């Protein structure tokens, strides 16, 4: 307690109010359960006799009394009471702070001022009831058992069930019936319990398999059951879940806010791609996605991966290939794989950021180059499809862009030389020459093979290739596929 009788009085008053409300609350709960007990007693009035109504009334009273006693007896922390007072009278936590700090040995002069201020404010208060009444769930249902008690009290006693059916048959017939019914139960009980776990269609399939099915699948083999049902072709629609999530996220955004500086700094192309992919796939099924947009996105991802030397360009290429082959779901899977890799790389870069002394862009000094007005270096340039940097131009010696385009532009860039090898089996030893020969391959085989096959088909269609060679070329590509 504090040194102010006024504050103490306020706290005592609120504490009493809390106790009263608690007593009401638990009293109603106690009365409800007492009434439920009373109903049980009155239901067995037949056995208990004329004392049953009195017992029921006593139960209700005892229940309510016990609840009230419990509510009154429960401890009310003074700090909690102080907080209630602060909230109820708009005292901005003055009472709670005063209560806590008034007795502390390290109280400062400011605490004295606080105590004086709180006392003055409390004295100016108009005291009112502040603790709200809380009606328990049982309170809303209390009328039901009480009414039931009243009805049962005035109603004649209900005879208790004896546990046997009334005797309608002569004794001999009864025994026969009993035997017959028990034998029928024995016959039917086992299959019935089993049937409950299966749908009728599965049951029929099960019988069919038993009758003439293949020996590979057994009766309990569920995979065999599912193999040729319509369920096999169904896929979970996760996009609808993603869409719901997007809607919730949009609530977080403000339209009229200024751009957040930190997030602007850390925004990069990966996140742009991520956003685009989310926008593309949000709430749609694979067959509803625009192939053109998906292709553009995959191309962008592939280019981004190629530029940063990342490992997702192969996935993006695979996705493009799948899209060409009319498999949008496979393309989406590939895109998701690429996104996962992209995200993992970004997370890894950010994890090591502090140790390496700044962001990637700072370390490479590109910001300084731009500030000096040098413009972006060739490494920074973003290339369109097939617009790679030609070898020997610019400061970077790293060739970029599509390999086919580069080769077409400069046939001396990469060459193949070879010499015949004699032995048990004749053959050729070949070497790559030129700039390309000294560099590791930047294109993944699976990623480009689709493009090459398409180029081959185009060439054949446009009759750039002699007709006699068509089959030979096709069989070559077929052999590659088989390998």
């Amino acid at each position, binding site marked *: 307690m504090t040194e102010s009788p006024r504050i103490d009085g306020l706290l005592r008053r609120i504490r009493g109010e*809390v106790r009263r*409300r*608690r007593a009401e*609350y638990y009293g109603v709960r106690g009365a409800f359960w007492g009434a439920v007990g009373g109903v049980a007693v009155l239901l067995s009035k037949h056995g208990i006799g004329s004392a049953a109504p009195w017992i029921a009334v006593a139960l209700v009273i005892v229940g309510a009394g016990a609840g009230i006693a419990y509510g009154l007896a429960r401890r009310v922390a003074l*700090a*909690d*009471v102080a*907080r*209630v007072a602060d909230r109820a009278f708009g005292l*901005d*936590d*003055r009472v*709670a*702070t*005063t209560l*806590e*700090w008034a007795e502390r040995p390290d109280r*400062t*002069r*400011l*605490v004295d*001022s*606080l105590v*004086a*201020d709180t006392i*003055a*404010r409390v004295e100016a208060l108009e005291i009112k009831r502040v*603790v*709200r009444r*809380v009606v328990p769930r049982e309170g809303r249902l209390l009328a039901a058992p009480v009414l039931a008690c009243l009805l049962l009290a005035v109603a004649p006693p209900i005879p208790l069930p004896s546990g046997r059916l009334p005797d309608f048959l002569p004794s001999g017939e009864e025994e026969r019936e009993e035997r017959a019914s028990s034998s029928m139960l024995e016959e039917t009980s086992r299959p019935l319990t089993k049937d409950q776990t299966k749908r009728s269609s599965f049951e029929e399939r099960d019988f069919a398999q038993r009758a003439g099915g293949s020996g590979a699948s057994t009766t309990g083999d569920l995979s065999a059951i599912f193999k040729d049902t319509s369920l096999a072709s169904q896929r979970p629609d996760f996009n609808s879940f993603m869409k719901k999530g997007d809607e919730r*996220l949009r609530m*977080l*955004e*403000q339209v009229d*806010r*200024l*751009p*957040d*500086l*930190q*997030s*602007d*700094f*850390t*925004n990069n192309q990966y*996140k742009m791609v*991520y*956003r685009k992919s989310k926008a593309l796939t949000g709430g749609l099924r694979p067959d509803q996605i625009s192939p053109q947009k998906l292709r553009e996105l995959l191309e962008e991802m592939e280019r981004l991966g190629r530029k940063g030397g990342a490992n997702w360009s192969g996935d993006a290429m695979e996705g493009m290939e799948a899209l060409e082959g009319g498999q949008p779901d496979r393309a989406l899977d590939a895109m998701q794989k690429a996104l996962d890799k992209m*995200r993992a790389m*970004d*997370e890894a870069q950010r994890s090591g950021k*502090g140790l390496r*002394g*700044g*962001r990637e862009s*700072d370390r490479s000094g590109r*910001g*300084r180059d*731009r*500030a000096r007005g040098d413009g972006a270096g060739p490494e920074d340039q973003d290339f369109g499809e097939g617009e790679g940097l030609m070898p020997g131009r610019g400061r970077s010696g790293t060739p970029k862009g599509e390999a086919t385009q580069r080769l077409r532009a400069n046939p001396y860039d990469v060459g193949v030389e070879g010499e015949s090898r004699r032995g048990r089996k004749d053959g050729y030893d070949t070497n790559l020459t030129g700039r390309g020969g000294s560099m590791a391959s930047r294109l993944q085989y699976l990623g480009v093979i689709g493009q090459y096959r398409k180029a081959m088909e185009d060439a054949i269609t446009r009759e750039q290739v002699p007709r006699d060679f068509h089959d030979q070329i096709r069989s070559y590509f077929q052999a590659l596929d088989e390998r």
Partner: protein
Amino acid sequence: MNRDARVEAFVAAFEALRAEVEKVIVGHREVITHVLIGMFAGGHVLLEGVPGLGKTLLIKTLSESLELSFSRIQFTPDLMPADIIGTNIIVEDADGRKHFQFQHGPIFAHILLADEINRATPKTQSALLEGMQEGAVTVGGASRPLPAPFFVLATQNPIEMEGTYPLPEAQLDRFLFKLRVRYPAIEELNAIIDRTTQSRPAAVSRVVNGPAVMSFRELIREVPIASHVRDFASSIVMATHPQWEKAPEVARRFVRYGASPRGAQALVLGAKVRALAEGRYNVSVEDIKAMATPALRHRIILNFEGEAEGIDTDNLVARIMENTEAATAQSREPFLR
């Protein structure tokens, strides 16, 4: 009401400073209040907003209304740490003997305006770190104390990102508050036009001196805080950590790193100044709520999803606060809510 004389003096000084700044600056009342709170709490403040909103003018006006030394550094990419801290130069005395003499840099001032702080390199930005945290700088192995009170007000703008160096998290954490300067409303814009194009600029008087600021800083630390209010502040800070078992869903989903203990200190100190500025002797839950956004918005680092989805940290802090409040209320008995 019985008022402590020191509190009276503080409230008067606070109001006088605000009035002086408002003679020049139209609107931005909340920003001005938070800058003053930051100064009296003994912290440093970062102001962010597009060019032309009066960030620099606000700080200059504040320095003019305080009897304190002021220096301004315009951060540029070629600015070096020695340009901020100072350097040892060789001087020759009357006997012709040469010795090193320390040439003080602009950091040796009470109020330092670091204009467009994100335009300098991280190396130069970090030259401010020691000064901001310790109130001293080390040059040539010797530690030199900075004048007290020492108050850094930095500005940065979120556009023209070319050639800028984002402040690293460690540097950001040194700032007590990060304030966002918004566009003025149309009435405020009209007042700006009238005030700046018709009459002569208003004269600002010096209303508070350095020793007064220092004594107010001590007074602020005396402000009592109830344990449940302190618990509420720490719950908010903890709720920004996605790893915390009671962290709300929004933090788990979008936050990579939550606020540091410095964030909790900033929250409580800011709340104490706010309480005292309102003539109150204790910190209330409302003070904590009012200070949560400026104290925590720059201390929360979003994860990949958060950045990709463009989550606003102000919104995030508001959501975390709501969740924390609801959870605190839930944990109490219905009669005591």
